[in-house]
């Protein structure tokens, strides 16, 4: 396909979506606020929005085993890109969606991408959503990513979301909102690594409104150097539901981590649990890996990688 992707573009695409060249199946690649290439499939239609910048992705009922790639890359400094991507997923689907944003900024001017993703998940559908955020470049310009994720789940639907931001993002404000109807199940995993003077704030609000609905929020983060992280997940239960929020953070250097997991019940059959832990890497873990021949630094790196794996 005659599409001009530079080595920087290709590196970013590999880092955020593990794709090399053009992917197979349905995809939409956006670079510096503009469409690079798009491909719809028989069951998955990708169309430009008429009201806002962005795309509508419509997945026909019963679509199974297909992937959708919608990566975004920003290589132009001074750009503030806002995009709305809305997924309309029919009933009885089983698909994987791979999104993500990579910023390469060698300039002193900032680059920003705000992706607003909304999912309407039909009855009995199963969705896996993988989103990676990544920043690189030698410039002092800020790399800012402020994603918004809205998930509306119909009866008996299942959704696994893996939201990852590893390195390079100066500032992020993440807002995640979900509403689950009868027997819907959401597993939301968020992994964050901040370093230098980076700031990351993650707000979540998950409403369990249907009987039998359940959510599991797993937050794993590593805060290094002078970075700052704030977690604010809130699960509300207004039906016979299950909710579990787990925040686990490794703190290093002079970093600062705040975890405020919240649960709110408005039904006597709602079962909600939250737990949060912040601590440094255990000394016995480092020592064990050193006895296997790793240096202190290698051991520390290995432990962090696995923790965020």
């Amino acid at each position, binding site marked *: 396909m005659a599409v001009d992707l530079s080595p920087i573009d290709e590196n970013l695409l590999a880092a955020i979506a593990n794709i090399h060249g053009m992917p197979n199946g349905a995809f939409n690649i956006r670079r510096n606020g503009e469409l690079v290439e798009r491909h719809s499939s028989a069951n998955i239609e990708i169309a430009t929005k008429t009201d806002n910048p962005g795309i509508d992705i419509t997945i026909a009922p019963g679509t199974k085993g297909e992937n959708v790639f919608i990566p975004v890359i920003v290589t132009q400094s001074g750009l503030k890109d806002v995009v709305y991507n809305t997924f309309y997923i029919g009933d009885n689907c089983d698909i994987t969606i791979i999104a993500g944003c990579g910023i390469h900024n060698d300039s002193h001017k900032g680059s920003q991408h705000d992706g607003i993703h909304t999912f309407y998940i039909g009855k009995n559908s199963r969705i896996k959503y993988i989103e990676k955020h990544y920043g690189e470049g030698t410039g002092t310009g800020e790399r800012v990513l402020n994603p918004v994720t809205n998930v509306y789940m119909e009866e008996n639907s299942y959704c696994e979301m893996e939201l990852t931001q590893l390195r390079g993002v100066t500032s992020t404000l993440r807002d995640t909102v979900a509403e689950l109807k009868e027997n819907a199940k959401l597993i939301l995993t968020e992994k964050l690594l901040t370093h230098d003077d980076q700031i990351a704030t993650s707000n979540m609000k998950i409403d369990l409104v249907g009987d039998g609905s359940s959510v599991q929020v797993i937050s794993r983060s590593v805060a290094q150097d002078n970075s700052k992280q704030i977690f604010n997940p809130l699960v509300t239960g207004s039906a016979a539901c299950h909710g579990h929020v787990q925040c686990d953070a490794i703190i290093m250097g002079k970093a600062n981590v705040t975890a405020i997991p919240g649960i709110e019940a408005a039904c006597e059959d709602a079962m909600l649990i939250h737990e949060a832990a912040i601590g440094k890497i255990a000394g*016995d873990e480092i*020592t064990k890996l*050193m*006895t296997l*021949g790793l240096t202190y630094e290698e051991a520390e790196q290995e*432990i962090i990688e*696995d*923790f*965020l794996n």
Partner: protein
Amino acid sequence: MLELKNLVFEVPVNEGAVETKRIIDDLSLTIGDDRFTVITGPNGGGKSTLAKLIMGIEKPTSGQIIFNGEDITDLSITERARLGIGYGFQQPARFKGMKVKKLLEIAAGRKLPMLACNEYLAKVGLCSATYLTREVDKSLSGGEVKRIEIATILASDPKLAIYDEPEAGIDLWSFDRLTETFRDIHEARDGRSIVIISHQERIIQLADEVVLLREGRISETGTPEQLMPKLGFTAKGVPGCQLTEPTALHLTTIPTTC
């Protein structure tokens, strides 16, 4: 060959105190290649400390540690590991997110085929099909994590392997398998030495040499045949400590009519 020369290890009596307590007291010991040595003795005698001094987890107050002719007293844990010393912890660390297979690969220093992983785990009595993809975290029981710990030492295949109470927390069936594994390594006689800290008769019986450590000093050394009778005696009680009479039981009548 490992040589410990006049090893002393002291710790402050209390945190910040000047007064010290001697945990290892002028200890000298030589462990030859191909040797299977069991260090035994009462709790608090300095066994684990001695093992940690050899691995470099603790630094001696004075004395020297020589490994294959090289003075390793001031070397780090990493440097000692790279020279071929391995250490199986009594209470192994747990790692959130790390898979058993990954830990074995770190230990081996290379990617491992499934078959090799299976073999290491089988040697410690674990069925690898169910364990390789599990995380080495709190979801594993104490006995499981202990056996994985031992498997990491088998995977790293050090010239000198030190196991600190490998039997602790392990069930009888797995213990049988473990004893066989130690016997097999020893019988291979390929220049590797094993040092095991243990109180288990069956492990002691495997030894070429038994070292009895008491109050930071070697109180006796010898073959299992020489030392076993004495160990049996010491196991029966602490000399000088009189057992008190058990208090009388107050049994109530158990009703049989209901």
